[in-house]
């Protein structure tokens, strides 16, 4: 499981992976008169790390909702992990943004991760308890959460909760990992830890990653391609292609300056590029 990406991927390119991890063809989404995006073509290969950037309301979270089958496209087609969206959700891992869990809720870290394995299945779950326990324990260990796995989740720090979220998303062995601002409100050390865990997963298991964020710098070294959405316009390419003054100025239709300072990208002049004032949740219906 620790072999480099190049040697692992061909072995994984079997039946399940013969298709791209995510395929959007001529995809459009509009709410009434408002076009979020249109004619979007995107093919995500297994193991690829795609950062989805753009201002608030540009349809980043809606894109994830489409891939999860919670929101139908207005036009075009979409396939996720070889299935229609919604049908293949057990092949998808989902990491929401960190938010405070109710401290009083009777739930341990171990239970939160277990939900990611079989929480969507009917019944009580009495069969194969031993195998299940081992799978959950392995997922907890992989994110270094073993020592607080039995604590109530509501009393853990934001960084600890987000590690559990990564384990929860990965325990089901997903082909596609959808992340909605998973680093929001984490400190730098935890941002680094969480993004490294996600990176390791896609390198060792060939899981494709769609990473919605308003801030590319914490994941910049990991990003293969950027999907940048602004007001119905979009651009897809490597960070070097997209994160330029020319491209972003064209997208925003105003003067935007992209400056590289050491290994960081600073964008000046892009309206509403800053903090997410209204964090969106995928569950909003």
């Amino acid at each position, binding site marked *: 499981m620790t072999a480099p990406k190049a040697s692992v991927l061909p072995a994984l390119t079997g039946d399940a992976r013969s298709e791209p991890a995510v395929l959007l063809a001529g995809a459009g989404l509009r709410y009434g008169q408002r076009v979020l995006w249109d004619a979007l073509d995107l093919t995500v290969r297994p193991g690829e790390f795609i950062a989805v950037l753009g201002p608030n309301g540009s349809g980043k979270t809606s894109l994830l909702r489409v891939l999860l089958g919670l929101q139908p496209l207005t036009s075009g087609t979409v396939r996720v992990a070889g299935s229609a969206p919604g049908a293949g959700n057990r092949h998808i891992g989902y990491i929401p943004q960190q938010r405070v869990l109710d401290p009083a809720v009777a739930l341990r870290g171990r239970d939160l991760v277990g939900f990611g394995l079989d929480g969507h299945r009917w019944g009580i779950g009495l069969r194969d308890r031993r195998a299940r326990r081992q799978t959950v324990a392995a997922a907890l260990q992989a994110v270094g959460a073993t020592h607080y796995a039995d604590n109530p989740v509501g009393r853990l720090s934001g960084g600890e909760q987000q590690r559990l979220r990564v384990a929860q998303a990965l325990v089901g062995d997903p082909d596609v990992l959808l992340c909605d601002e998973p680093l929001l409100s984490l400190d730098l050390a935890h941002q680094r830890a969480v993004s490294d865990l996600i990176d390791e997963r896609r390198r060792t298991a060939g899981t494709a990653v769609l990473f919605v964020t308003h801030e590319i710098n914490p994941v910049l070294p990991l990003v293969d391609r950027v999907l940048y959405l602004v007001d119905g316009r979009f651009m897809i390419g490597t960070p070097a292609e997209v994160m330029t003054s020319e491209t972003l100025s064209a997208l925003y239709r105003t003067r935007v300056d992209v400056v590289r300072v050491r290994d960081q990208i600073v964008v000046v002049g892009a309206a509403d590029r800053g903090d997410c004032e209204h964090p969106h949740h*995928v569950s909003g219906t």
Partner: protein
Amino acid sequence: MGTLFDFNQAVQLLSRGFVQTALLAGAVLGLVAGVLAPLIVARNMAFSVHATAEIAFSGGAAALLLGISVGYGALGAAVIIAIVLGLLSRRDTERDSVIGVLLAFGLGVGVLLLSMYTGRSSNKFGLLVGQIVGVDSMSLALLVGSSIVVLVVLAMIYRPLRFASVDREVAVARGVPDAWLTVVFAVLVGVATALGVQTVGSLLVMSLMITPGAAANRVTANPLLATVLSVVFAEVAILGGIVLSLPTSVPVSPFVTAISFVIYLVCRAVGTARVTPALAVRT
């Protein structure tokens, strides 16, 4: 009766058929309420349980007036209101006020129906505070049958229901049908509440449907242990309440609620004592 509690008399009463029926009914109700309670607490449904109980009371009053079994009246009204409450979105800001509106109106209708009833007044009182020693074999059959249905349906939806109850956003992303699970669970709670109305009465059904779950959640984060504790707490409250009330003329409910409340206070104290040192270390 010289003392409040006469031990010999209680033992004597325990051998009576109607007391054994009451204990059996109490045990069944304690099991169902105990299993449901942690989920009710996790889903913040205390107020809607309260409303369901009051509406079940009105249904029982209607049944009295019509001359049919109180149990069926309570059950019918509780299921209807449970569906209505289940259809209200969990995140709807209006949810609590809508429940309050329905509760007030439903209770008003119940009082009107009761005032029109000219039969035995103990029947009226029983709806409010319970008359478990009056459970006959027919209502026992209804109680056991409904309880089995509730537990079987709950077992089928238990895993996704718990997932959606404590981690809704990810559950929905994983394809859990939260919207209709909410309705199904509300109906299960409605049925259980209607059963509780017959035994501990509509005013006090919360001491069985909510308090055991709230108490268990204070002392453990382990979901299985929380459910087991909740059932034990509910059984202790209902069975203890029945036994203690036997040699007195006091209804069952004050005993049930008192035991339930004491258990809750103890669990709160234990939970707080456990958390405080841990927090001190972390800060």
